[in-house]
C-alpha cells in the first residue's frame, strides 16, 4: 500500500519524519516522503500523482491547527480522494491540551485517525487495525 508522508507547514522538525519513513518501510508500505516544510497542496498533489492510499501528516511545532482548517475546502477541489485514509500525529496544538478535545476537532477537519502525542508505533498499529477493519 502507498503512503504519502511529510511534516506540514513551516515545521522543520525532521527527526520523527526520518523514523516514520523507516517504520513504514519496515511494515511493508511503499513510502513517498515529502519531508518537512510541506504545504497542503503538495501533499494532495503527491497523493494524486502517486495514487496513494494513505496520507500521513506529522506536525510537531504547533502549526497543525492553522493548516487543518483549510483541508476540507482544499480537498473538495481534488477528485477521487474519497477513499484516501487521512491520518495526522505529533503535537497537534500550540501549548498543551488533552486528546479528548483535540481528537474530535481534527476528525471534524477531515482526519480519520488522529494521534496527539502518541508514540509512532502505537499510531501505526492503529492504522493497520483500521485498514483491516475497513477491508473486511
Amino acid at each position, binding site marked *: 500500500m502507498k503512503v504519502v508522508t511529510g511534516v506540514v507547514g*513551516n*515545521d*522543520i522538525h*525532521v*527527526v520523527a*519524519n*526520518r*523514523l516514520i519513513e*523507516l517504520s513504514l518501510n519496515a511494515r511493508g508500505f511503499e513510502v513517498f516522503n515529502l*519531508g*518537512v*516544510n510541506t504545504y497542503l497542496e503538495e501533499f494532495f498533489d503527491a497523493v494524486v500523482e502517486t495514487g496513494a492510499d494513505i496520507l500521513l501528516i506529522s506536525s510537531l*511545532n*504547533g*502549526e497543525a491547527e*492553522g493548516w487543518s482548517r483549510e483541508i476540507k475546502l482544499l480537498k473538495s477541489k481534488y477528485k477521487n480522494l474519497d477513499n484516501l485514509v487521512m491520518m495526522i500525529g505529533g*503535537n497537534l*496544538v*500550540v*501549548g*498543551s491540551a488533552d486528546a479528548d478535545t483535540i481528537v474530535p476537532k481534527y476528525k471534524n477537519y477531515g482526519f480519520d485517525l488522529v494521534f496527539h*502525542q502518541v508514540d509512532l508505533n502505537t499510531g501505526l498499529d492503529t492504522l493497520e487495525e483500521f485498514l483491516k477493519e475497513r477491508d473486511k
Partner: protein
Amino acid sequence: MSLLQEERKIILSNEYVDNFDFAEVEEFVKNASKDLFISHHFKTIDKMLVQPRGGFPTYKKQFALNEFFVEANVDVLPLTIDSNTRLNDYATAKKMLRLSEENDVDMLNGYPLVNHGYRNTRKMVTHFNKPVSLRHGTPDARLLIETAIASGIFEIEGGPITYLLPYSKNFPLDKAFLYWKYVEKICANYSKLNEPINRESFGPLTATLVPPAITIVIQLLEMLLSLEEGVKSFSVSFSQTGSMNQDIVMGAVIRKLSKHYAEQINCGDATINLVYHQWMGAFPTNKDFAEQLINMSTVIASMVGADKIITKTREEASGIPTKEANAKTVANTQYTLGILNGLPNIVDAEEEEILTLEVHAIMEAVFNDPADTLWRKVFNSIKNGIIDVPFSPHIINHNEMITIRDAKKNIRIIKKGNVPIPDRCFEYEKAQCDLTKDTTSIVNDIIHDIGIMQ
C-alpha cells in the same frame, strides 16, 4: 548612499514595518543603559548567567512572562520569535497575532517582533532594564535584527549555518550568508556607539547526535564570519551531548580553539564567551523526570565552565511552556548554581587531542577551498559535504555522516561521508563502538540513542 544604506531601504519597504527613524535609533543605542548589554554583564559579572527561552504572541503575555522571569531572578530575558516571522511571512503573523489578541488563545509560537514594531517593543525592553537575547531561526533576519536593535535588544542569536541547516529545507544557503553578512555589519556598526552588541551562534544545531567536531567547526566559522565584519563580542555555544565527559572535553576544546582562530585573523581583541544549552533533544514526558534532566544539565554546565546557560522547562515534551513552569526553571537553576561548589578540575588529554585534530583538519579543508572569500569557502564546504550535519532537514546538507553513541554515551562518528576526519581520529572513534552488529541493530541503536533521556 552606501550599498548598506540601499539594502536597508529595500528591506524596510515592506507594508508591515515600522517607519524607521534611524537618527533616533542611533541616539537611543548611544544612550542606552549598560544593563541592557549582555556584553557588559559578561565583563562585569563572575557567575554563569541564566537565560530561559520564551515568546508569546501578544505584548501583554510577553510582558507578563518577563515579570515572572524577573521575579525568579533571571539574568537575561529571552525573546523568541514565531515561526511565520522566521520565514518573513509577516502577513500570516499579523493575522495570527490579531486572532491571538481577540480570542485570548495563542495562535503563534512566538513573539512577532516585526508586527509589534520597535517603538512598542522598546517600551517593554527598557521597562525591565535587563539584557534581552533575540532567538529566532531566521535565514533572512535583516529586518528582524534592525527592529531588534532599535528595540534595545543587544544580543542576537543565530548565523548563516546554524539558523539554516537545522531550521530550513529549501532556503538558499548562499543568500543566507549574504543576509547574515548584513546582520554582522549592522551589529558591528551599532557596537561602536556604546557597549558591543553580542552575537551568539546556535551550537545545538539539530540537537540530534551531532558530533562535537561538526558543532565546533560550525561555531568557529560563524565566529570568524562575524569577527571579520567587526563584531567585538561573540558567544560560541553547544548543547548537552548526553555524556558528561564529552561535554567537558568539548568545552575545553572550543574555548581553546575559538581563541586560536580569532587570533589567526587578528581579532584577538574580541571577547569570546561560552554558552551551554540544557539538553536540546527529545525530552521525557514525565515532568518530574524532565526536572532531573534540567538540573543535571546545570551541573554539567558548571563543570564545563560556561559563561551563560540557556534553560528548558519541565513542560518541554508537552508544548510551549507556561510562564510559571518557565520561571520555575530559572529559580531552580539559580539555586543550583548557588549551591554547587568545589568543582573539580577535569582534563581528558586524549579526548581533547582527538577532537582538536578533527576540528583542525576540517577547518583546514574549508580554508583550502579555492573560493575567494571565507563565506564562499564555507558555502562550498557544506555543499560538497566537508561539513555535514546529522538530521539536518536542509536539501543542501549531505546526510552522509552517521553517528551513534558508544557505551559511555559519547557521540561517535562511524561513517564520515566527505568530512575529512583524520584516519587516526576516525579509527579512535570507531574503536569506541561495537560495530560488529548488523545494520538493523545499528538503526535500532540510533533510534534508542535519540531517546536516551526519555
